[in-house]
C-alpha cells in the first residue's frame, strides 16, 4: 500500500500564488469583454501587447537579479500587473506609452523593491500614475463609446498601437470629466445635453463597472480576498456622494450610483484595493484602508484635476497601510487587550 510519506501539517491550502493570480486574470475577462464591446479593440490590444512587455521586463529583472526565471514567471504576477495597468490605460494607446508604463510598474515599482511581496506600492497603479503625470495628453484621451463615434476595427487598433502617427482616432470627454467641469447645469440637464451619460453612469462605463463587479464577486466567492476592503471603499464612496448629492443641483458631485458605476470604481474596488501585498493586513485595518480610499476617491474626483482618482487614492493609502497595520494589530488569543500596567 502506497502511503504518502510527508511530514505534518497534512492539511494544505490549495491556493498557490499561481492559482490566485490565474483566478484574478480570469476575473478580469468579463470587464475586458465589455470594454472591448463599447470602446473597440483598443483595450484588447493594450492587454496583449502589455503582457508581452511585462514578461520581457520581468525576465530581464530576474536575470539581472540572478533569480530563477521559470519559478517567478510561473506565478503570473507580472501578467496580472500588465492586465490591470492595460485595462486602466485609454484604448488605442501607442506602444511606447504601454512600454514605459509596464517598465515602470515591473522594474521600478516591483523589482527594485525586491519583487512580488516586497513592493510597498501597487505596481500597476504606480505605473499608471507615472504615465499620468508624464504624458497627460495621451493619458486623458479616451475613445468615444459605441454609438457616439465610429469604432476602429481590430486592424486599426493594432495600427493605433504600433504606428501611432498614422492613426487618426477621435477622443471624447469621459462622464467624470464632464461632471467635474460642470458649473451651471442641473444634473437632469447635464444628462440630457451630453450623450455620454447612460442610465446611471456613462454609456459603456456602467456596464464595464458591472462586469468588473461580477468578476470581483466571483473572486470573493473563490475566497481570493475578504470583503472588508472593497466593501468599505464602496460604502464610504457612496456615503460621501450621497452626502454631497443635494438632489442634483449644478454644484452637486454626482449621485452615489453615478460614482459607483463611473470610471474605475468597481475595477479599483475589486482588483486594486484588494492587492494583498500593498493593502493593510488585519481585517479591521482593511476596513479602515478601504474606507479611506473611498473618501480620497470622492475628494480627488470632485475637487481634483485628474481624469479619475483611484490610482492616486490607492497610492496614498499604500503609504499609510503599514501605519494602519501598526494600530490595528489583532489581539493574540490568550492575551489581554491592553498591555499590563495601562
Amino acid at each position, binding site marked *: 500500500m502506497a502511503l504518502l510519506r510527508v511530514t505534518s501539517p497534512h492539511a494544505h491550502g490549495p491556493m498557490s500564488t499561481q492559482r490566485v493570480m490565474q483566478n484574478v486574470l480570469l476575473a478580469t475577462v468579463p470587464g475586458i469583454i465589455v470594454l472591448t464591446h463599447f470602446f473597440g479593440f483598443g483595450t484588447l490590444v493594450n492587454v496583449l501587447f502589455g503582457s508581452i512587455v511585462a514578461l520581457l521586463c520581468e525576465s530581464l529583472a530576474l536575470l539581472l537579479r540572478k533569480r530563477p526565471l521559470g519559478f517567478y514567471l510561473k506565478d503570473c504576477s507580472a501578467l496580472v500587473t500588465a492586465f490591470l495597468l492595460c485595462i486602466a490605460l485609454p484604448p488605442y494607446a501607442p506602444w511606447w506609452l504601454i512600454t514605459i508604463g509596464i517598465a515602470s510598474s515591473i522594474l521600478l515599482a516591483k523589482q527594485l523593491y525586491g519583487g512580488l511581496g516586497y513592493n510597498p506600492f501597487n505596481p500597476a497603479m504606480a505605473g499608471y500614475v507615472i504615465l499620468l*503625470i508624464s504624458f497627460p495628453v495621451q493619458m486623458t484621451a479616451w475613445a468615444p463609446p459605441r454609438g457616439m463615434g465610429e469604432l476602429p476595427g481590430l486592424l486599426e487598433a493594432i495600427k493605433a498601437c504600433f504606428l501611432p502617427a498614422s492613426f487618426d482616432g477621435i477622443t471624447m470627454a469621459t462622464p467624470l470629466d464632464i461632471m467635474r467641469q460642470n458649473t451651471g447645469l442641473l444634473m437632469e440637464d447635464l444628462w440630457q445635453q451630453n450623450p455620454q451619460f447612460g442610465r446611471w453612469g456613462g454609456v459603456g462605463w456602467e456596464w464595464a463597472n458591472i462586469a468588473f463587479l461580477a468578476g470581483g464577486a466571483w473572486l470573493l466567492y473563490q475566497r481570493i480576498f475578504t470583503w472588508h476592503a472593497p466593501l468599505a471603499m464602496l460604502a464610504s464612496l457612496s456615503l460621501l456622494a450621497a452626502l454631497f448629492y443635494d438632489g442634483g443641483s449644478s454644484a452637486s458631485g454626482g449621485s452615489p450610483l453615478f460614482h459607483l458605476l463611473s470610471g474605475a470604481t468597481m475595477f479599483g474596488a475589486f482588483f486594486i484595493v484588494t492587492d494583498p501585498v500593498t493593502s493593510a493586513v488585519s481585517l479591521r485595518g482593511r476596513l479602515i484602508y478601504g474606507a479611506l480610499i473611498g473618501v480620497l476617491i470622492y475628494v480627488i474626483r470632485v475637487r481634483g484635476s485628474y481624469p479619475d482618482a483611484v490610482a492616486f487614492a490607492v497610492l496614498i493609502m499604500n503609504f499609510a497601510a503599514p501605519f494602519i497595520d501598526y494600530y490595528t494589530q489583532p489581539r493574540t488569543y490568550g492575551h489581554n487587550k491592553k498591555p499590563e500596567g495601562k
Partner: protein
Amino acid sequence: MAQVSYADLSLNGLWKNNPAIVQLLGLCPLLAVSGSVVNSIGLGLATTMVLIISNTSVSLIRNIVSDAVRLPAFVMIIAAAVTCIELLMQAFAYELFQILGIFLPLITTNCVILGRADGFAAKNSVGPSLYDGLIMGVGFSAVLVLLGGMRELTGTGALFANMDLLFGADAVHWKVVLFEDYQPFLLAILPPGAFLFTGLIIAVKNLIDDRIKKRQDAIKAAPVKGAKRVRVTGTAS
C-alpha cells in the same frame, strides 16, 4: 594634524567620499535644480566657488576663533561668500540667476560647505583646505551635471539647451537634439525624476565599488604558487 596627500584628497572628493552620492549632503539644491545641464553647471560653479572661498578663509582663521563660537563664525564667512557669488551671477548671468532663484542664497545652508569647513578646513592648513574645497566642489558639480544631463535627455530628448544663459550668445547653437519628435517625459523633469536618477547613480556607484572590492579580494585570496599550506603536507597547486 597629520600630513594629507593631495592624491588622497582628490580620490576622496571625487569618488570615495563624494558629497552628493556618498555623503548625500546638499540634496536640496541637487534635486531641485538639476532639471537641465545649464542649471546644474550654474549651481555647481557657484557651490564650488563658495566651497573654495569658505574653506580657505576658515583655514586662515582656524587658530584665532575659539571653539565655542566657531560655527557662527563659519556660517558668517559662508554667507558672505554666497552673497558675493550671488551678486556676481546677477551681474554676469542674470537669466540663470533668475532660474536658480532661491537655491543660490540657499547654498549658505548647504551641508557640504559647513561640513567641509568644520570637518576639514578647521583642522588643516590653507593649501590642503583650498584644494579640498575645490575637489569637493568638483565632485558635487560632476554629479549635478551628470544628473542634469540624464534628466534633460530623458525629459526633453535634447541636451545643452539654453547654454547661452551661462556662456554667452555663441552657446545658442550648442543644443543637441538627440531625438526628433520626442514626447516630453515630464516625470524626469519633475522632482520624482531627480530622486529616481539620484538613486540610480548611487546604485551604479555601489555596483562599481562592489566589483572593485571583489577583484581585490580575489587577488588577496589567490594562493601563492608553491606556498606551503598550513597543517597540510605538500604544496598548493
